[in-house]
């Protein structure tokens, strides 16, 4: 039976990507995991891999074409001669074309919400419960097909000063979408505490020396501590959808990294499943790929809690925007005179100030073993 490879998502906020090239031709026999082509946004290029063995039957997307995330990129068959099934429209939104990549739990959730799989942007090529929940959250927790979100009524006008209008890059559009979620859905608050820098600095130095690490591990270690705290306080790892709090099962730690002009939220998924050194190594891998504008699809979306630092810019206070569908973004900054400021933006629908202060106090020093 013919199967498909879908156009993957590179980051959470780009619904379209450009197909750069195909590395395979019609009739080629390919193996699962083989790279079949590349897609890009303005700042990132992603290799697209086959999820199963098969023969290339045909292409739907074309090189240099800008296509929707989740649309069909190419068809695979069990034999060279297999016929590509007739599908009226091979892009996102058509019934029947993605059934094999929908998980069983996701299918139940789709039925419950009267949704079809093809409207859900997949994660790593699969429609999962997480993908559906994220889709629902972007629609305010309701099925947009049956309860349309009210159209924006305000219209911005050009300033009465001479100038030139520039098109936003994809990345700028993504940032605008993130900020809009923060504005439209979260009820943001910000709290900070003062703390002693020495215990963390000493712990990180000892850890670096013991492990022979090239990279100073202070921020990854603090991010790991946040993962531990989140497990002790599950409310930190949550969002509100509709009128219910939604507590995430995995801890997907999003970590901001500036790579050239691009600002990424690089994500370590299931961070609760590794130990401290494993987390430092995994985050190092993810950040290195971000620095090379080469994040994998699953590493560029799905954050459930965030960590941000502006220490490199010697900034002593910053108030981060909350990534979509998160309730907490820790703000690490440069210290002065042995003291530092540790802050956090939070969604007041999920957390109150006392809970955030409690979390920041725990984070202000390494765990006492």
């Amino acid at each position, binding site marked *: 039976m013919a199967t498909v490879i879908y156009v993957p998502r590179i980051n959470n906020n780009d619904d379209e990507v450009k197909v750069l090239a195909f590395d395979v031709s019609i009739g080629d026999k390919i193996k699962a995991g083989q790279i079949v082509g590349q897609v890009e946004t303005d700042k990132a290029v992603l290799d697209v891999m086959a999820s199963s063995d098969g023969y290339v039957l045909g292409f739907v997307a074309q090189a240099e074409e800008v296509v929707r995330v989740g649309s069909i990129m190419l068809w695979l068959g069990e034999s060279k001669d297999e016929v590509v099934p007739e599908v009226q429209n091979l892009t996102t939104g058509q019934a029947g074309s993605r059934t094999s990549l929908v998980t069983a739990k996701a299918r139940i959730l789709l039925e419950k919400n009267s949704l079809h799989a093809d409207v859900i942007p997949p994660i790593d090529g699969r429609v999962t419960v997480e993908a559906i929940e994220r889709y629902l959250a972007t629609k305010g927790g309701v099925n947009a097909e049956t309860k349309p979100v009210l159209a924006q009524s305000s219209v911005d006008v050009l300033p009465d000063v001479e100038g030139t209008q520039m098109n936003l890059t994809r990345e700028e559009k993504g940032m605008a979408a993130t900020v809009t979620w923060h504005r439209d859905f979260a009820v943001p608050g910000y709290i900070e505490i003062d703390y002693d820098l020495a215990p963390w600095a000493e712990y990180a130095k000892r850890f670096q020396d013991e492990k*022979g*690490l*090239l*990279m*100073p591990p*202070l*921020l990854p270690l603090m991010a790991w501590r946040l993962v531990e705290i989140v497990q002790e306080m599950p409310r930190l790892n949550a969002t509100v959808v509709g009128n219910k709090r939604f507590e995430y099962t995995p801890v997907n730690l999003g970590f901001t*990294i*500036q*790579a050239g002009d691009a600002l990424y939220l690089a994500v370590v998924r299931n961070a609760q499943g590794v130990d401290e050194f494993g987390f430092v*190594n*995994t985050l*190092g*891998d993810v*950040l*290195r*790929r*971000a*620095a*090379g504008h*080469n994040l994998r699809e699953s590493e560029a979306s799905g954050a459930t809690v965030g960590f941000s630092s502006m*220490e*490199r*810019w010697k900034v002593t206070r910053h108030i981060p925007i909350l990534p979509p569908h998160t309730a907490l973004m820790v703000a690490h900054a440069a210290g002065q005179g042995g003291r530092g400021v540790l802050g956090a933006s939070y969604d007041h629908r999920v957390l109150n100030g006392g809970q955030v202060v409690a979390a920041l106090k725990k984070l202000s020093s390494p765990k006492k073993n």
Partner: protein
Amino acid sequence: MSLNKESIQAEIKAKVIDIAAQTGDDASELGLDEIIPATGLIDSTGLLELIAWYEKTYQIPLTQEEINIDNLGTLARMAEFVLRKKGLL
């Protein structure tokens, strides 16, 4: 691209100078055997940028285990590591 130790060291140093300049630091006096992270000339984000550039420029994908002081701590070690990975040393 010329793959000899001196030219690789010079290329890497030029990149370090470029990265250090982003945060207002001058790395032009960086010695070949100085431990780069210990100089404070580039921070962890800068090191990530350096390593990502290094992998791409010399076409040597690194594992996390290889990213350590012994292999990549100085300009000289980084150049030697390229040659070793390419079987030229």
